[in-house]
């Protein structure tokens, strides 16, 4: 009974591992610290590991995950109906805010922000194969650009949105230019370092950013020049006044949702064009073999830079939107954890796969909102998901299938 022996060993190991951390809880009472022993979690963990080992659960689950069908978006039947499907999804997404509850619309808007972030990071990690662990820095740049421009210069959301994107892209270029010649894992660490530096600067540059307190009272977006607040600002008109209807804060929620949707559609449009353009092919080629690219006259730095800057740009747009939605931002919203969440989305969805990333973003943001008790375990599960995905299905739930440019066969060409 080798498996029984292994299972016992694993259970014993689990007991050693969990006893001091889950079994003994440190409680601080004023100046003294005491231990409260609670063996239940240890027992459960030991039992779980024992059973899992005995049944060889890891291998079984692994086999199941690997056996999951690969959804190929280039498969003939799918691409024939793709326009239809897109239309259905779009219509549903447009109707959704008018039929769903206010809370649901709010969660959906929140999720759409992550869809955008996921799609943006997907360009960098999925298409160009550059692991960017400081992605949140560009999100912060976009958010602070809007917040500051709106506060100091009174610029409107629609003016600041492209500026935020451009600022973030510029940051991406400035940062990317020196670092993109580094090897993959070093690049990851350097971007992580830069992300932290930006957050620390935001946290400490009190005179500009108000430090840890952040910026409050950031203006909401307007809809065709109409404001969404109860009272109009001097010289402005509000939406409900314009239409002569009573004020309802739901309008703002719906408008924000629609703006987020618009941004996501814009992002998708641009990305889908880009992957069919020479630069999209160059990203994939570069991911596959940088040396071969150089030998053919492709400038690797420039190509990586384009992916990096574009990803940063989308993060900047998402950041500006985020600031306008919440109306308040603090440096605490832009920690490494946020980068990790977006990375988890890309990894779960499948690097390079846009549908996968969208689904993963919805899954990972909506699920914790639906099950409040789940949110306590949210990051724990994110971490676990990243590990397990790498072991079982590194290509993601829905692996990427870049649209292939087909050369008609000789017979077809002659027809």
């Amino acid at each position, binding site marked *: 009974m080798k498996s029984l022996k292994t299972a016992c060993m694993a259970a014993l190991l689990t007991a050693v591992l969990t006893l001091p951390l889950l079994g003994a809880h440190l409680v601080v009472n004023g100046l003294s610290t005491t231990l409260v022993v609670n063996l239940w979690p240890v027992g459960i963990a030991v039992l779980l590991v024992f059973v899992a080992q005995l049944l060889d659960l890891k291998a079984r689950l692994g086999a199941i995950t690997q056996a999951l069908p690969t959804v190929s978006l280039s498969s003939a039947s799918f691409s024939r109906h793709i326009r239809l499907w897109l239309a259905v999804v779009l219509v549903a997404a447009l109707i959704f805010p008018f039929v769903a509850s206010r809370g649901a619309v709010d969660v959906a808007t929140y999720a759409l922000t992550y869809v955008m972030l996921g799609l943006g990071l997907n360009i960098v990690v999925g298409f160009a194969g550059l692991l960017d662990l400081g992605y949140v820095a560009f999100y912060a740049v976009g958010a602070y650009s809007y917040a500051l421009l709106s506060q100091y210069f009174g610029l409107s959301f629609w003016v600041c949105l492209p500026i935020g994107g451009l600022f973030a892209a510029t940051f991406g270029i400035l940062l990317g230019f020196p670092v993109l010649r580094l090897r993959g894992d070093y690049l990851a660490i350097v971007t992580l370092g830069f992300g932290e530096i930006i957050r620390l600067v935001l946290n400490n540059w009190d005179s500009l950013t108000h430090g840890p307190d952040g910026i409050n009272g950031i203006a909401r977006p307007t809809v065709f020049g109409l404001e969404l607040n109860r009272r109009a600002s001097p010289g402005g008109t509000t939406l409900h006044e314009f239409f002569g209807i009573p004020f309802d804060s739901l309008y703002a929620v719906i408008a924000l949702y629609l703006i987020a949707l618009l941004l996501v559609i814009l992002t998708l449009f*641009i990305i889908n*064009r*880009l992957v*069919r*353009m*020479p*630069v999209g*092919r*160059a990203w*994939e*080629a570069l991911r*596959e*073999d940088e*040396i*071969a*690219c*150089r*030998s*053919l*006259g*492709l*400038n*690797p730095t420039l190509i990586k830079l384009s992916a990096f800057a574009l990803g940063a740009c989308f993060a900047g747009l998402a950041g500006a939107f985020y600031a306008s939605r919440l109306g308040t931002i603090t440096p605490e919203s832009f920690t490494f954890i946020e980068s990790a969440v977006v990375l988890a989305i890309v990894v779960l969805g499948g690097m390079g796969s846009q549908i996968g990333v969208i689904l993963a973003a919805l899954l990972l943001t909506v699920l914790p909102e639906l099950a409040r008790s789940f949110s306590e375990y949210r990051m724990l599960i994110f971490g676990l998901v990243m590990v397990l995905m790498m072991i079982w299905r590194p290509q993601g739930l829905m692996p990427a299938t870049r649209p*292939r*440019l*087909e*050369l008609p*066969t*000789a017979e077809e*060409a002659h027809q």
Partner: protein
Amino acid sequence: MKSPLLTVSGLQMRFGGLLAVDGIEFQVNPGEIFAIIGPNGAGKTTVFNCVSGFYRPTAGEIRLDARAITGQPGHRIARAGIVRTFQNIRLFRTMTAVENLLVAQHAQLDTNWFSGLFMLPRFRRAERDALERAAYWLEKVGLREYANREAGNLAYGQQRRLEIARCMITQPRLLLLDEPAAGLNPQETHELDLLIRELRDQHDVAVLLIEHDMSLVMEISDRILVMEYGRPIGIGTPAEVRSNPRVIKAYLGEE
């Protein structure tokens, strides 16, 4: 006398304490097929890496026409007209054959994002022309019917030919082939021989090759440089090289 296309003079490459290549001098004339031979470890690929910009030589000069290209980055040298193949084939394995040829045309394509995003006629035309050129070269190397097959799934000989096509589509002036016949059977080697001549005759490209297959080298080359331990030990026409006593002693003598 035509002026040489490629001039390599006093080339030296040192890795730490190891002198991999020293005192290499040669010229490749337009339309010439020039071979570098020598035992394994003689430094032939190192010369290639210097010429194609992957290594920065520790001394010496490399000129394309009259222009010094020594130590320039690889992609710039490629754009200047020197492209290469690799000993251990470096195709984009998960991309299709035709996509490999499209990537290679990157430098010549319309990479303007604006025209691409809005699918302007200029962009469409550039893409169509690129596809046509790709089709032309696939036909040329006999891979037309494998156009939409992943490069990594092609047979070994096909991969070698695709790699050459991928170089040629960039319209190079000098093609560097690193052991193009390695792993090919006699029939395939013969076809390679014909292909290289055809490229030279019809596509106005000079060829610099490293090769171990002596019968191919002797038949195809206009001139040959023989290297041993990183140093040149003979240069000349195949006949001259064959009768050079140092070469016979060091290299051919062992056969």
